[in-house]
């Protein structure tokens, strides 16, 4: 009867009314408003989440915004990698921990079904979760939404709540959208990191190169550079008001004549140039074409390389090779000459015994013997000069090296009506040196002096070779200087004379290697070469070497001159 009465009541329906659209509208409007605020939050999130944020930061930020749209107690991101699930981030950060997601865990269910799902919280669904007792309130329900990268599931977002009613379908939809948004943000952050890492790697690569690198567009604008500048460019670079390369590199206000850029533009091939700076440094400039996606020339990469040292080394190698060849020849010639000369001297000495000592014949024969001995000396010097590399560094008397050189070339020089004066200091201390190399330096200096005198057209030509001890920086040094009253050197050339291949002579006469090799030798002896010159009046080149601490003089060396 109860049932019957209840039915009756329902039929006549005191407590039922025709459904009203106003109520329905209110419901719809409320739902729409809620939806709006959710959209607003999604929008805010996209704006808020910085692309260089970590996943934990993204989650924290989202969680902070969420209470307005979706009241919840905790939130987490679970990442699927190599077929395993890992709780990547959770907010609050110490809310829970999960070591292992069992196969039948809700997260796996969602990952497999790819459907956002609401779960009732309880022992069954979360036995694998360690829940921090610092958060005592029990979860009432939680929802997990899959996160996608394109169609692929990359993980899931979990949201749980304790106090409010369980999640509704409408909220689930929002959770789903939120998960999508999170997935996008996470993806963006990852891509950004990748891109910026690649960019940074390249930038670091270029900055690591110590040579200056520039990217210049076809309109001469410097687009990028690696922060390295040569001392020559630096001042122009600082002062330049435009981005133009000719302004920044050379301080010009229009493109340089014969600009390599035009050649690159014309040929589309790399161009190499070598140039000497005013300070005597050698620069090698390489211009590489840069093509854009349409395969048309878009810019030019310029790499400047200081090749001064390298060129010097090359010069020494070339010179050494020449000397080696010369050494071979000299050894052969010396060997061939030694035997006949021994015969000449020996025979002359035997002949001389047959004549009275004061006879005219004996005198003539003595001349032959002396000349023969001198030839032998010359041969010996030549041999040792040719074999300079083999000679060891030994305590050496520089005066004796001077005499050996003069013995070799005095004749040649005198032939040119040049007087050689030697003012050798007999108390000159010994230096640790490779004798033949010292000879080579002196020969060079003497040859240069001779050439300078010959070019001067002076009537009284004079070379003075001096040796002395000079205090430099409080240390005594041995100095051999070669002075001439020849042409002198122009001030602007003074810096460049030691540069390999620099020469003021005609190509048949000079290689441009002499001074650079000489300086190399001086430096290998911990010394240097100093030059003073007045254009039109003459020059003085001084080889300066450190002296040996034991300052004893050797016994007098025989003067073979």
């Amino acid at each position, binding site marked *: 009867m109860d049932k019957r009465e209840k039915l009756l009541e329902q039929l006549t329906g005191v407590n039922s009314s025709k*459904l*009203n659209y106003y109520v*329905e509208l209110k419901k719809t409007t409320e739902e729409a408003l809620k939806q709006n605020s959710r959209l607003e939050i999604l929008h805010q999130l996209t704006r808020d989440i910085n692309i260089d944020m970590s996943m934990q930061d993204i989650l924290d930020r989202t969680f902070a915004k969420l209470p307005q749209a979706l009241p919840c107690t905790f939130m987490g991101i679970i990442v699927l990698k190599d077929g395993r699930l890992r709780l990547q981030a959770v907010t609050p950060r110490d809310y829970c921990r999960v070591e292992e997601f069992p196969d039948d865990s809700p997260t796996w269910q969602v990952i497999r079904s790819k459907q956002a799902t609401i779960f009732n919280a309880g022992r069954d669904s979360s036995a694998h979760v360690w829940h921090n007792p610092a958060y005592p309130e029990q979860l009432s329900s939680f929802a997990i939404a899959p996160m996608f990268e394109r169609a692929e599931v990359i993980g899931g977002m979990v949201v749980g709540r304790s106090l409010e009613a369980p999640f509704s379908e409408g909220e689930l939809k929002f959770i789903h959208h939120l998960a999508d948004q999170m997935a996008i943000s996470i993806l963006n952050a990852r891509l950004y990191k990748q891109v910026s890492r690649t960019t940074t790697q390249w930038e670091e690569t270029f900055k690591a190169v110590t040579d200056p690198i520039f990217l210049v567009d076809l309109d001469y604008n410097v687009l990028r550079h690696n922060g390295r500048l040569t001392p020559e460019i630096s001042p122009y670079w600082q002062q330049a008001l435009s981005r133009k390369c000719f302004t920044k590199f050379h301080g010009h206000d229009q493109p340089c004549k014969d600009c390599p850029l035009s050649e690159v533009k014309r040929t589309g091939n790399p161009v190499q140039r070598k140039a000497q700076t005013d300070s005597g440094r050698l620069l090698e400039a390489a211009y590489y074409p840069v093509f854009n996606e349409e395969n048309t020339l878009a810019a030019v990469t310029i790499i400047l390389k200081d090749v001064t040292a390298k060129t010097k080394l090359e010069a020494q190698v070339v010179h050494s090779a020449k000397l080696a060849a010369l050494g071979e020849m000299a050894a052969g010639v010396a060997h061939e000459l030694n035997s006949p000369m021994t015969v000449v001297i020996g025979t002359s000495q035997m002949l001389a015994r047959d004549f009275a000592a004061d006879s005219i014949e004996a005198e003539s024969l003595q001349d032959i013997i002396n000349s023969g001995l001198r030839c032998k000396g010359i041969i010996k010097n030549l041999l040792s000069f040719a074999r300079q590399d083999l000679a060891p560094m030994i305590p050496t008397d520089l005066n004796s090296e001077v005499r050996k050189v003069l013995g070799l070339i005095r004749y040649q020089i005198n032939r040119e009506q040049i007087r050689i004066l030697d003012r050798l200091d007999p108390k000159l201390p010994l230096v640790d040196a490779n004798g033949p190399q010292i000879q080579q330096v002196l020969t060079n200096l003497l040859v240069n002096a001779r050439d300078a005198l010959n070019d001067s057209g002076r009537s009284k030509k004079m070379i003075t070779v001096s040796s002395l001890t000079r205090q430099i920086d409080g240390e005594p040094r041995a100095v051999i200087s070669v002075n001439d009253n020849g042409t002198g050197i122009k001030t602007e050339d003074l810096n460049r004379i030691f540069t390999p291949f620099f020469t003021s002579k005609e190509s048949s006469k000079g290689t441009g290697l002499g001074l650079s090799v000489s300086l190399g030798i001086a430096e290998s002896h911990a010394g240097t070469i100093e030059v003073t010159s007045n254009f039109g009046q003459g020059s003085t080149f001084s080889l300066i070497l450190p002296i040996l601490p034991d300052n004893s003089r050797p016994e007098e060396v025989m003067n073979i001159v």
Partner: protein
Amino acid sequence: MNISKFVTPEIIFGCGSLSQIGGSALRLGATKVFVVSDAGVIKAGWVDIAIDYLRQAGLESETFSALTTNPKDNEVDEGLAQYLQSGCDAIIAVGGGSPTDVAKSVAILATNGGELQQYEGINHIVRPLPPMIMVPTTAGAGSEVSQFTIIVDTARKLKMSIISKSLVPDIAIVDPELLRTKDRLLAAATGVDALTHGIESYVSLAATPLTDIHALNAMRLISANLRRAVDNRDDIEANTNMAMASLSAGIAFSNAILGATHAMTHQVDGLLDHHHGETNASILPHVMEFNLSTNPHKFAIIANALGKDTRGLDSSAAAAQSIEAVNQILEDVGLAKGLAEFGIKEEMINSLSKNALNDACLVTNPREASLEEIEAIFRRAL
């Protein structure tokens, strides 16, 4: 029951009131109207006239008429598809009970979704329905004012009753002129349907003084006008009175609900697809007899309302006069037939009775009925 409720739509009554259809639809906020009707009514021209009035009000419309008497769930589905596709935002039925019930059912699904079966029973509708205007072309069904829609579940072969206050239309336009075009049999059948509504709601357990007034009014008008209306289809006075009778009966049963007759005829209609009024005619007297003892006083009043003089009779004899009066009317309009004539056989009775036991209308029947008792009534009605 001490507390009762009474619900009716806005009712526009009178010859020529069909002209109000456009303005009514506009007032409900319609922009495009879904007109549900059937072939007969369209043929009679009433739909064209209705659409014309709508057009005059600046309203577009789309017509759906693919339905049969005792409308089926699949017909509702078709109607729904057309409604959703049409972009209409109001529903108008021009016709008898069938188009009206289809219109209501389309309205349910349009805003609530799902299957019609979900809403079978009482108060299962959860969302408001689109605005509904009902224009009856028969005097009987009463659906234009009721909270019912009755649709045949073709799978289960029975009539589903869906009951909800939300099914009460917004506006009922009752224009007696529209009754003129129905044929004699239909006039008789619908009239008997209205009579059944009146009698069942009057003795219903949920009857209230408010419903009694309408139930009695309906019975008086029917006993005085049904014969005339059936005999002369153009008798405008008889038609007007029958329209009012049907309206009153509808108001009464919508609020007081029905009884065992409807619980039983719903099953027969679901099975045989016969006119509901005719089945009512076969069963009504036997149910009255079954119920007579529960409230002889009310049955005596029914006898009076139907024109019987019961002065000097004891209460049970007076009550019995009501059955006499009903039988006379049925005889006079040619509907005194047994169910066997429609093809109901003894072996069907058991399952029909079982289904009847579950029909909501049985709840308000004044006498509780067992399966055996229902079966016994069916047998008598054969």
